[in-house]
């Protein structure tokens, strides 16, 4: 290779590295909305993805059925045992619901922070390189989806909507390692223990639950839910279960490892939640803008 690094090529290489760094720097800061060409690209790609995902899912579903048949008997027995438990819980639930309703009526409280509107969506694709944990859903601005809405699967909390185009939107899963992908959560128990979810450990296949107070006592198997603080996500969405606890590197806080309750690798139908009651901050902001 005699002219592999001639002067001209070296200059082109250097210039392209500078452009690369500039582009990365530009796109690393968080943008609220997409530019028009980006929206157009995402919509047209979303359209082709919708055509593709059905045959792909059918083929994958066939293999899944084969694997499931082996475990059917075992699962059936386990479910039967659970059924008795369910009847007992249901009676309890009805009772608690009734008392709650009467108490609310007494207080004359109509809106609740926990009320939300549910929109169902189908997953049409996923980011193929698994560095970025994004899924794409077939509902967009047209259906009333806005950025920062919480997304859940039937098993639990899975992530938030990051950007929206007209017919499809992108959901960032909680296992994404982005620095901005953090939110507060609490350990369910007698006393609420606060912390923040910060990324994913691929080796243990667990979420990192950081910044817990040193003297907080957490047991394995305790459930972790969203706190509802920060006015973004609704509270009481199940995130996962504690599987391991260890002190931080400096020893000032603790870190817990969570097994996510939703299977983040097997998502087909998801639900997008919108808080019914407007958050306090937003109404304040609107006033300021006026």
């Amino acid at each position: 290779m005699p002219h592999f690094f001639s002067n001209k090529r070296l200059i082109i290489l250097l210039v392209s590295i500078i452009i690369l760094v500039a582009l990365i720097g530009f796109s690393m800061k968080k943008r609220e909305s997409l530019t028009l060409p980006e929206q157009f690209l995402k919509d047209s790609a979303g359209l082709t993805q919708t055509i593709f995902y059905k045959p792909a899912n059918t083929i994958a579903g066939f293999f899944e059925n084969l694997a499931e048949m082996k475990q059917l008997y075992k699962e059936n027995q386990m479910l039967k045992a659970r059924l008795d438990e369910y009847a007992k819980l249901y009676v309890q639930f009805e009772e608690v619901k009734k008392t709650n309703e009467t108490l609310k009526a007494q207080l004359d409280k109509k809106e609740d922070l926990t009320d939300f509107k549910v929109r169902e969506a189908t997953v049409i694709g996923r980011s193929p390189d698994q560095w970025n944990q994004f899924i794409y859903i077939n509902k967009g601005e047209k259906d009333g989806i806005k950025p920062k809405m919480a997304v859940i699967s039937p098993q639990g909390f899975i992530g938030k909507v990051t950007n929206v185009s007209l017919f499809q939107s992108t959901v960032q899963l909680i296992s994404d390692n982005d620095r901005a992908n953090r939110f507060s959560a609490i350990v369910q128990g007698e006393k609420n223990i606060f912390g923040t979810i910060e990324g994913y450990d691929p080796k243990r296949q667990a979420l990192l639950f950081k910044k817990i107070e040193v003297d907080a006592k957490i047991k394995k198997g305790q459930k972790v839910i969203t706190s509802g603080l920060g006015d973004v996500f609704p509270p009481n969405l199940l995130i996962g279960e504690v599987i391991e606890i260890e002190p931080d590197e400096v020893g000032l806080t603790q870190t817990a490892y969570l097994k996510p309750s939703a299977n983040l690798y097997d998502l087909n139908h998801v639900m997008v939640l919108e808080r019914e009651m407007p958050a306090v901050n937003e109404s304040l902001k609107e006033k300021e803008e006026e």
Partner: protein
Amino acid sequence: MKKILLPFLIYLGFISESSLVQAFLPHQNSMEWQIIPHFSMVMILFVAMYLNTTYGLIYGLGFGLLTDLLYTDIIGVYLFSMAATAYVTSIFSRYLFGNLIVTLLLSIVGVTILEFFVYGLNSLIGISNQMIDLFLYKRLVPTLIINGLFAILIYYPFVKQLNQLKDTLKEN
């Protein structure tokens, strides 16, 4: 083959990556492997090897930008990596005779270069925190096998089409 059909074919490969990962991820995760299809990259490598360097570079830039915009959050990582990979591979292919084995080898080398580029850049930015040993065993090896299989699968039909296209380009 008409000239306009080529980007359309690569686009099909590009979209199928996302659908395949979404449909087959539950199964591969039980094996703890990360299989990443780079079908559009393999096809661009074929273009760079059998058509010419300029086409490879342009398609690398185009589909790199598309990958960045649609599948990731950061613009620039795939744009740079895919174009550079296409360029380097086409330089290699000038000194080698084009048959199935050589093409397969070059595709595997190309996908390896791409994976290392993206892994390095993402580690730099802080998107990936995977250790290098996990990356090599659980991600790189299965990924190379799948993309190698894809390269063998499309070799005969795709190269035939590319050679036809090259002849029509020469005539003009």
